[in-house]
């Protein structure tokens, strides 16, 4: 393998990636920034006029925004999986991805965190959602899954941020050494004056371990809690016990796909082929395959339970998903999430970057649709047939969704040029 790459080589390789943005990068950033600005403008428009500008309606009170929220939280998951869980399991291929995946986690959570706010009818009262001492002497309802969400997502964000930052500290010091002038100073300040003495290293090592240990349960719990937003309700199609593992698997599935979506072009553009060997990518592809199998199994279970249980409401719900108004989306989702990834059983495809890239895009589409199908279909056909009704996303919702991608990619592009995209220290260690 690439143990033979010398330490200075690693440094220069990774740090050259940070130098001087080219026109492609600038165009990308501009485009992403534009999307983001558009999304922001639409959000402002929505706040001014009311939620009516979105397509959500009665009975479908949650639509694209919640879909986006779940989607982005899901994306975040693989970052933690790769950096924390694989750290604990000492998986070697982790080092090729962990920095990018952690960054992705942070950015995805930033984006995800916006959506609960975007979907609030009265976002200017968002602070009602936080437990803080106030003159009203009123607190929040800790029995509400939405409060669990507030805690879970903010915990997840803060822990991931700390984890990301801690991982970066030595690399920032390295970057500081390679940069002169203000940039160097900035990196040095950000590195908090890291010198790499033994005392720092020894606490650092423990800290990293503890953080990984703390973050590991989050991989399972955050998306479980997100899934409980649905599972705790009584809506047919939501109220089911398999949601937690199903969502966690889905999250890792979609997150891993997003890692591939980001890393494959990044590897090529930043010339990091040597540091991100194809074997490591194959390992990620295997995770993708495994989670795809779990997700596919969950689909079967969901429908199986509905029809085995002979619950009228459930049966109608799952019949509707497969054959009703949104059946096209349902079948695209099945194709993308459960059928196409089976091709990864073929080793050649597992190692084909082009295939993996396309597949990862499809999986992202499929997983977005999965959340859409779950959120929307269940609400569209619930208990009282008089209330049944369909939902069509409005341009505002689509625009804000695009804006969220804009924010995510803009943040990632900035990250690529400002921070070391691979963990130099860990690559050296390897």
């Amino acid at each position, binding site marked *: 393998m690439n143990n033979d790459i010398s330490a200075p080589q690693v440094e220069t390789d990774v740090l050259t990636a940070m130098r001087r943005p080219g026109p492609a990068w600038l165009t990308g950033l501009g485009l992403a920034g534009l999307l983001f600005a558009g999304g922001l403008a639409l959000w402002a428009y929505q706040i001014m006029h009311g939620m009516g500008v979105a397509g959500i309606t009665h009975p479908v009170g949650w639509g694209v925004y919640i879909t986006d929220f779940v989607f982005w939280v899901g994306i975040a998951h693989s970052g933690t999986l790769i950096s924390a869980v694989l750290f604990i399991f000492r998986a070697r291929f982790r080092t090729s991805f962990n920095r990018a995946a952690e960054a992705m986690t942070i950015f995805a959570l930033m984006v995800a965190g916006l959506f609960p706010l975007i979907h609030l009818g009265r976002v200017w009262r968002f602070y009602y959602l936080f437990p803080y001492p*106030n*003159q*009203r*002497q*009123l607190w929040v309802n800790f029995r509400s899954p939405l409060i669990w969400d507030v805690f879970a997502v903010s915990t997840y964000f803060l822990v991931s941020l700390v984890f990301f930052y801690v991982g970066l500290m030595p690399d920032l010091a390295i970057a500081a050494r390679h940069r002169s002038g203000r940039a160097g100073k900035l990196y040095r300040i950000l590195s908090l004056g890291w010198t790499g*003495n*033994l*005392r720092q290293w020894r606490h650092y090592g423990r800290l990293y371990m503890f953080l990984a240990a703390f973050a590991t349960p989050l991989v399972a719990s955050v998306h479980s809690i997100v899934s409980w937003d649905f599972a705790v309700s009584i809506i047919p199609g939501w109220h089911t016990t398999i949601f937690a593992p199903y969502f966690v698997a889905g999250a890792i599935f979609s997150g891993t796909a997003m890692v591939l979506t980001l890393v494959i072009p990044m590897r090529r553009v930043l010339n990091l082929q040597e540091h991100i060997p194809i074997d490591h990518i194959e390992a990620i592809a295997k995770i993708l395959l495994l989670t795809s199998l779990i997700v596919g199994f969950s689909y079967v279970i969901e429908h199986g339970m509905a029809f085995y249980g002979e619950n009228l409401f459930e049966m109608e719900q799952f019949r509707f998903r497969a054959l009703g108004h949104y059946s096209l989306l349902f079948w695209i989702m099945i194709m993308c999430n459960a059928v196409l990834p089976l091709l990864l059983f073929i080793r050649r495809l597992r190692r084909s970057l082009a295939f993996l890239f396309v597949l990862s895009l499809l999986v992202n589409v499929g997983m977005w649709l999965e959340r859409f199908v779950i959120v929307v279909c269940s609400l569209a056909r619930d208990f009282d047939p008089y209330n049944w009704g369909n939902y069509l996303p409005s341009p505002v919702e689509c625009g804000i969704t695009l804006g969220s991608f804009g924010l995510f990619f803009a943040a990632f592009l900035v990250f690529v040029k400002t921070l070391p995209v691979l963990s130099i220290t860990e690559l050296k260690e390897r």
Partner: protein
Amino acid sequence: MSDKAPKRPGTRLRKLFCLAVFSYFALLVLATLSASLVRGFFAPPTTQPIAFPHTTHADKLNLACDFCHSGVKQEASAGVPALSVCLSCHRAIATDRPEIEKLLGYERRGEPVRWQRLHNLPDFIHFTHQRHIQAEQPCAACHGAVERMLEVQRVRSLKMGWCISCHRSRGAPRDCATCHK
């Protein structure tokens, strides 16, 4: 500590850092304080159309509150007295004073007096004086010692927390629907 570094200019810097943090918070506190002061100073003063001295009526003459605010015991709103109530005395008493002349002017024009409202509740709040009087709350509990105010001021915040504190301490209902319409 085996690997303690030799004294470096770091200590000065550390102090500087602390100072910066401290001054940041100090500035923040100062800004909040001054903002609230400015709001207090530059808030437009409420001028009532008639300078009605509660001191004379409620203190010197010792009139009961519900002599004029007659709804207070029976109704949700205490109500401001009708012009005719004022005039039942002031048609004869102190008619030469400028403020009373104003009063008579209102009557002549058939125009109601438009008092500035000081004790204002939001429109989603249901408040009834009657229940509070029934629970033997003195008027002063919420309105302060009006009889000693030449010009009435609001002395209580009338915010939710203030209401709740009283309800809590007196065991009055804390069901949201008691007050929230």
